[in-house]
């Protein structure tokens, strides 16, 4: 469903952010990309989303090369990025310009029901809690049921309880129509809860250091022995990964 072949990304200032990235994600798979900050994992996601172009290699979604943002890839950012002047429902309908207003409304209502925000459809973003705002952002990304959904540290700004809640919620939503999920995070527990496969990245330049298949049945219980084993494996891979060079000497790309 999602193929990256030998992707490299060099920024205009000459910084090599990504190098030799090869990744194959099958339909309905949940892949979590994990790595230290500045290792290029967000850049990787932006390249897949078509927000940045790869300087080398190609990104393919369902066999088609990605040349820019497309309808078959949904994106959820670290911040909800809701338009503050629109109600929650209008925000969810934001990208539905090509639909008739009735269709858009029913699609938005379904997505809002899926994320449990039906009764907040008329609320303004400032009236939502952080977790609710992020759920609205997820509804906005899922409203057209894109086959691929990219999430860039979607829960990292939330408190621990909300984060756990939303991780479960994301898995429920995944069960809705089984999109291919690619989640970027720096939270090992989150990666272990969500992933079919964890991709460990190292930087810089950002490369894939290891891939760890997580073959545990869902729902997963944190702290049981197999969960802990997987965590040890991922932790070992993370510490094996080439450490980041001292910040400042390499000119780390701004967070995008």
């Amino acid at each position, binding site marked *: 469903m999602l193929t990256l072949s030998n992707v490299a990304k060099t920024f205009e200032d000459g910084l090599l952010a990504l190098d030799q990235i090869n990744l194959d994600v099958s339909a309905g798979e949940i892949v979590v990309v994990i790595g230290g900050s500045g290792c290029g994992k967000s850049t990787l996601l932006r390249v897949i*989303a078509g*927000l940045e172009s790869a300087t080398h290699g190609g990104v393919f979604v369902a066999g088609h090369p990605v040349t*820019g*943002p*497309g*309808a078959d890839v949904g*994106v959820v*950012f670290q*911040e909800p*990025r809701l*338009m*503050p*002047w*629109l109600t929650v429902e209008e925000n969810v309908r*934001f*990208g539905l*310009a090509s639909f008739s207003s009735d269709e858009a409304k029913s699609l938005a209502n379904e997505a809002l029901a899926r994320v449990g925000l039906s009764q907040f459809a008329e609320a*303004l973003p*400032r009236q939502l809690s952080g977790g609710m705002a992020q759920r609205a952002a997820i509804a906005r990304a899922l409203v057209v049921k894109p086959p691929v959904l990219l999430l860039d540290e979607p829960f990292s700004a939330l408190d621990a309880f909300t984060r756990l809640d939303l991780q479960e919620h994301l898995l429920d939503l995944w069960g809705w129509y089984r999109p291919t999920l690619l989640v970027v995070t720096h939270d090992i527990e989150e990666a272990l809860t969500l992933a079919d496969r964890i991709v460990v990245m190292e930087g810089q330049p950002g490369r894939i250091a290891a891939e760890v298949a997580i073959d545990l049945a869902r729902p997963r219980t944190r702290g049981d022995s197999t969960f802990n084993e997987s965590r040890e494996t991922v932790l070992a891979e993370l510490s094996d990964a080439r450490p980041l060079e001292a910040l400042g000497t390499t000119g780390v790309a701004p967070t995008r």
Partner: protein
Amino acid sequence: MGILARCNCGDDVGSRERSLTPVQAALRPTLQALRSIPSIAWIPLFILWFGIFETPKVLLIAFGVFFPVYLTLEGAIANVDRKLVEVGRIYRFSTFALIRRILLPASLPTYIIGLRGGLGLGWMFVVAAEFMGASNGFGYLLIDGQMTSRPAIIIASIVLFAVCGKLSDLALATLGSRLISWQDGYSPGET
């Protein structure tokens, strides 16, 4: 007197309408050069070209008000959160859709402040315009009061300016606060 005031307001609205189209102008850097010309410097030219009646006055007010408002809008657009603009890119918005659906609503709060500033400035140019030769209007009354040594007339005109300025600003501010009621900013009085 009321009629005179309304006439002045009309001039002002005329200028306002002109100042509402700066989006297209945002692409023309030559405007920056035009902007640095003091608006009052245009008066002799306008009088030569358009006579001494209403047209040059409306033009002067429009010119004077346009640039500060334009500058504010330009700054407001430059300050729109890049992250929101990126959402538009995700949905493959055209430039026009990006302006209409993200840039303009996001810059509206600052733009309204610019418009209020422009409105105040508009009243200033009303006086300047009427100084250049009018047979009615507040500016005329000021000059007339001076010529005929009647300070009461001058003071009455000044008071009327205060009243009209306050009322027009109140109208704009009320309209503005309705349009941007979604804002989650600090409002004095809340603690």
